[in-house]
């Protein structure tokens, strides 16, 4: 569709989430919430989290006006972080960030997150992908705001 080398970034796997995110929307009865803002570009990613009885994530919802990368990252995060506790989220977020900076995928990093490996060629867009994770981690830490700086 866009024959210009951008396929690695706007790959089908990512655009699928960007065009039809399954986890967009606020969760009723969510115990945790945090706002994510990227002040440099205006991306918004407000995350709400429902926990199960064992302090693990049951469901994640997200809202806000954001670019395709941020939307796809948030939707992928919502799928892959379900069932995780705060420590597992931190580990996954760290591995995801490493991947965005060009590191080889860590063993155990779920394949849907590996789809973002092409972002290493777009350093100015890294914060678009990390913003949802920053908001999720802020929510889990009981903070109201995250900023992807």
């Amino acid at each position: 569709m866009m024959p210009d080398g951008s396929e690695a970034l706007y790959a089908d796997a990512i655009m699928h989430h960007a065009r039809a995110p399954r986890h967009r929307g606020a969760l009723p009865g969510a115990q945790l919430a945090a706002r994510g803002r990227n002040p440099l570009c205006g991306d918004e990613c407000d995350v709400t989290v429902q926990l199960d009885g064992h302090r693990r994530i049951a469901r994640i919802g997200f809202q806000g006006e954001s670019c395709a990368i941020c939307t796809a990252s948030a939707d992928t995060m919502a799928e892959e972080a379900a069932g995780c506790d705060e420590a597992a989220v931190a580990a996954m977020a760290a591995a995801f960030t490493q991947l965005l900076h060009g590191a080889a995928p860590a063993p155990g990093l779920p394949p849907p997150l590996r789809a973002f490996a092409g972002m290493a060629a777009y350093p100015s867009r890294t914060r678009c992908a990390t913003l949802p994770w920053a908001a999720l981690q802020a929510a889990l830490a009981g903070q109201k705001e995250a900023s992807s700086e």
Partner: protein
Amino acid sequence: MSASLAAARPAPFDVHAARAEFPILSQTIRGKPFVFLDSAASAQKPRAVIAAMRGAMESQYANVHRGLHFMSERTTDAYEGARRAVAGLIGAEADEIVFTGNATAAINLVAHSFGTLLRPDQAVLVSEMEHHANLVPWQMLRDRTGVALRVARITDAGELDWHSLEAELARGDIGLVAITHMSNVLGTVTAASRIAQVAHAAGARVLFDGSQAVVHRPIDVRAIDADFYVFTGHKLYGPTGIGVLYAKRALLEAMPPFLGGGEMIASVTFERATWNEAPHKFEAGTPPILEAIGLGAAIGFVQAIGMDAIAAHEAALTEHAMAALAGVPGLRVIGQAQDRGGVIAFTLAGAHAHDVATLLDRNGIAVRAGQHCAEPLLHRLGLGSTARASFGLYTTHDEIDTLAETLLRIGRFFA
């Protein structure tokens, strides 16, 4: 195209010959021709500017004003020559031109220095379409001294709302109207003379942020009757690190200095200092010597082409762009002012501005995406991020066609 431009019909300049003077434009970006449509953020530099600065460093440079030796005298001549060039560009006298670090610094100078002449029961009036540089310093003045800050509204078309401006002035307490001469988002050119007239009639001074306007239109600060006029060198094909404050002589004489140090003094004891005359009173420390020389060369470059010819070229580009962009489904240009220049912010349905900018970049086209240092304006318009294409004197009609064609493909991809 405005009536006055249609009547003037300056000789069209050879844009391809002009482009050849900008070495950076002949590159390819990601295998595609470099289509630079981000001049409003910062413009590219012609050989004349590069050569002037390099030449100074290679063969004619020393500190200015106080040296008694040959190099200092020659460099001082070049520096003061640049001041005269700036004055000539905008219809002022050299002693009414203060060099600063950029336009933001120039506005901060006015906020600090002229700000002390405003009473706490007075107010500064800005507009909804200001760049942060012409908003934040006035917020800081308010927080320091209590001088109120009020905001004149714009219409949904992105023009100044005259009723709002006049209503604010009618309250009788405005000491300064600080307003853009050309919006860096909407492209709107404000009716500067008329604004100055109504401001003066209400007892207010007027400052214009001319950072975009000076690049795109001939400027005459006396015809406008501006009290203050600021712009920055790096958008006018000059180097970074230099800005200009024009102010009426009487104001510069009345205003206390902003920064203190060397050069701005007449004499110094341990207890106190006396001030140098304007404009030197406002130029503390070693000035941006090389940058001023570069700006002087940039002004010489544009004046050799002629600001009227540049303005006519840009009017044609803008007309072409508005027509071409109208042919892209889902594309909305932000700002529909009657008098607008070659700064075009837009949204594309289904595609976030960052994605538009990234995909344009993959095709060698540089635009800006984000909030363009105008967060309150975008919020007023109900927008998050927008993309922005902006023209320089080196922009061609082919480049506009390339932009429109690529936006068409991007729109289809996100549809």
